[in-house]
Structures are given as C-alpha cells and as structure tokens.
C-alpha cells in the first residue's frame, strides 16, 4: 500500500485549498453578518440573526447535497470544487460571525466610551482600540474553527472532490487495506492541524502574558 503514499499526500493540496478558501470567504462575509446581527435596527438585526442560525443548524453535509444535487434542478449547476468551497465558505461565515459577535460583547462598553470621550474618530476607535482587542479575543476561537473546518473539508469527498479523504477511499478500494490507508490519511490530518493548534496556543499565551483584556 505504501507505494500509494505519494498519491494520498497529493490530496493535501485539495484539502488545504478548500479549507483556506472557505475560511477566507467565511472570515470576510462574517464581518458584515456580525455587525448586522448587532444592529440597533430590528429590520437589519433580525434577518442577520436568522441567517446565522439557519446556517449553523443544518449539517454541512446537507448543505453540500442541497447545493450539489438540489440547485441543478433550478438551473444552478456548480462543479464539485466550487460547490465545496462556496458552501463551506458561506456556512463558515455564520460560525465566524457568531465568534466575532462573542468578541464584541466581551469587550464591554467602557472601551468604546473612553475612546469616544477622548475624541477619537469612529475610524480611529475601530483601528486603534477595537480591532486589536477583538483580534486578540477571537484569534484562538478562530484557530479552533479553522481546525474543525479542515476536518469538515473531508465532506467534499462525498460529492467527488478529489482531496485527501477521496484519495484515501480510492487507495483503500484498490489495495483492500483500509486500515493502513486510513491511518495514513488520519495522520496527515493530524500533521496539518497540529501546527495550527500550536501556533494559536503560542500566540495566545504570548498576548496573554503581555496584557489581559478585562
């Protein structure tokens, strides 16, 4: 089976590509969603909260099937890669919006009041006071989410995206050695997520040592 290791490893590219692309889409779309969900206006807030809840309540696998098998019936046809990236990106925006929301409320009103009283403009308040603190508060949770998204990306194999898990499936069928194959696949996921976890821990504890938000 080990002659197929290279073939399996080539799947890393697909897995990482889906994860990174979906994460970036989610991280960007999550910002307006989070801001809207905290709006003072009900007509803005309510739809945003509904969108967040709907995306988070339905399994990603169901969303993938819905987009891949359902949308063609209404004339929207996306390839497997596009389906995986767009679907996981959009559902990620809901999860990340919720993470941002948590960060906002953790900061408390005092920071906002103090920076206003000092006469900082809205832009400067965001740039020098809110954003750095928010980044500090949400980065560990975002890293945790990135790791779970890396694992979720395996779902794309079910709609024919040739990534890590899909390749593992092919090799297992060809060699009949499912045990070795999927141990290797599992190890690759482990190796991919460990640096992410390690870096986020280190960054977090370094920042924590420097200052505590509160």
């Amino acid at each position, binding site marked *: 089976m080990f002659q197929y290791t290279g073939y399996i490893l080539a799947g890393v590219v697909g897995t990482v590509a889906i994860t990174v692309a979906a994460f970036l889409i989610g991280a960007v779309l999550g910002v307006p969603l989070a801001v809207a969900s905290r709006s003072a206006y009900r007509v803005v807030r309510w739809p945003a909260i509904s969108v967040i809840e709907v995306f988070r309540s339905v399994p990603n696998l169901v969303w993938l099937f819905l987009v891949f098998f359902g949308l063609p019936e209404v004339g929207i046809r996306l390839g497997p890669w596009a389906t995986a990236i767009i679907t996981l990106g959009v559902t990620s925006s809901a999860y990340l919006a919720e993470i941002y929301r948590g960060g906002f409320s953790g900061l408390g009103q005092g920071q906002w009041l*103090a*920076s206003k*009283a000092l006469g*900082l403009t809205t832009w*400067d308040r965001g740039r020098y006071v809110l954003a750095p*603190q928010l980044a500090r508060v949400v980065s560990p949770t975002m890293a945790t989410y990135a790791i779970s998204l890396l694992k979720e990306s395996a779902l794309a194999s079910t709609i024919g995206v040739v990534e890590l898990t899909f390749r593992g499936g092919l090799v297992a069928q060809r060699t009949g050695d499912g045990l070795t194959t999927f141990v290797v696949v599992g190890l690759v996921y482990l190796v991919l997520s460990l640096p992410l976890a390690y870096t986020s821990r280190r960054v977090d504890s370094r920042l924590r040592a*420097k*200052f505590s938000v509160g």
Partner: protein
Amino acid sequence: MSGLDTREQAVESDAFLAASGVTMRFGDHVAVRDVTLGLARGQVVSIIGPSGAGKSTFLRCVNFLEIPTAGTIRVGGTSLTVGPGTRPREKDIQPLRRKLGMVFQNFNLFPHLTVLRNVSLAQERVLGRSPAEAEARSMSLLERVGLADKASAYPGRCSGGQQQRVAIARALALDPAVMLFDEPTSALDPEVGAEVLAVMKELAGEGMTMLVVTHEMAFARDVSDRIVVMVDGAVVEAGEPHKVMSDPEHPRTRGFLSAVLGR
C-alpha cells in the same frame, strides 16, 4: 425652590461650563430631569445623591456620550443644543468634547496598549502631536501622577489606583478646559482611592475646573466649592458644601445625608 437658584447661577455670564435644561429620557423613564447648573472657571462642583439618581447619566450628557433628549451644554464659547428631532452628528459634538476630559469609574484604560501609549494615543490622533511631542507630554503627566516608572507596563500589571491615575493623565494629556469625574474612586478600596483623591485635590488646587460625581462625602465637603444634590434625576438642592452638609433644606437631601453619614 432651590432648583431655581441653580438655574440662576447657570445663566450668570461667568459660568464657564453651563448645562441648561438637560433632560434624558429612556422610553417612559426619565433619568435626568431638566437639570441646570453652571461652573465658574476654576470651580470644583461635586454632584452627590443616592444611586440611580441620574448623576452619572447627567455627566455623560455633558460630553454627549449619552445624547440628551433635550438641553444645552456650553463650555466657554462652544455650545451645543439638542431637542426633539435634532440629533447632533459626531462632528457637531467633537468641538465640545475636545474641551472636556473624562475619568470613568472603571478606568477604561486600553488593555492592549502600554501606559505610555494609553496617554499618547489620542494626543497623536486627535491633537495631531508628533510621537515625540506626545511622549514628552505623557511622561511629564505620568511623573505628575507618580507613575513615570510604569510607562512601559500594560494596564493589567497596574493596581486599580494606578490605573485610575493613568486614566487621569490620559484625560489631562489633551489639555481639557474642564475635567469630568464619574465616581472615580467607587471601584477602589478606600486606601487606594485616597491616592486618586490626592491627585484630584492637587488638580483642584492648580485651578482646574472640575465636575465630580462622587460618593466621597469628605472630598465633596473639603475640596468642592459647591455641592449639587440630585434625586430621581433632578437637582433638589445646591449650595456651599458646609451649608448643604450641615443644614440641608430639602427633605430628600436630609434623608440621603443621614443614610450615608450615619446620623
């Protein structure tokens, strides 16, 4: 009624900070009821009263951290009036806010910036001072509040009393004409609060105009030129500290004082 006396004082031309007819409504609840008061330049006025009397809300209306439902605030030659249907924009508020420094009950230092950056940031961004200028000014203020050695520390490494003194330096760094203090010692142990009160006393001695919401009766009595008593959102009594403390006119003042002074 004594409410009228305070109104007359506010319209005196020598009032440097004048609040008139300030009212703040939250739905049906009236948090601040037609408050009018004035401070001459260099005067220290303490606002006392039971919790929930609207003292802090009123103070936040003075620099428009809360937009009052109605009223006028004037500092020197800068004034801003709001009423039903007129909601000031950020840039209308800015000139007034620049003349007012504010110190909060919970310090509200920026935890991700060093003590020095806390004091320098707004000098650079709001007043356009160069980093070197700002730093020099910050250091001299930190020295003044006795914390020059903490300049490179983060607020999380400072005690509450130290944080509050940094907050005072941060507000002073913008050269405000009037300082607003919102219960500056309420979150501190009494002995730590004393450091903060000492700094405030010194400021008052140097002629800073100060409006102080406080529960520190000793400070109100010894340092302020005038005491204003607020109950249920309204000013019920105002006058010389000794007069208000020892011979209050309004029954609500008497009730409040006997509760806090235990007599």
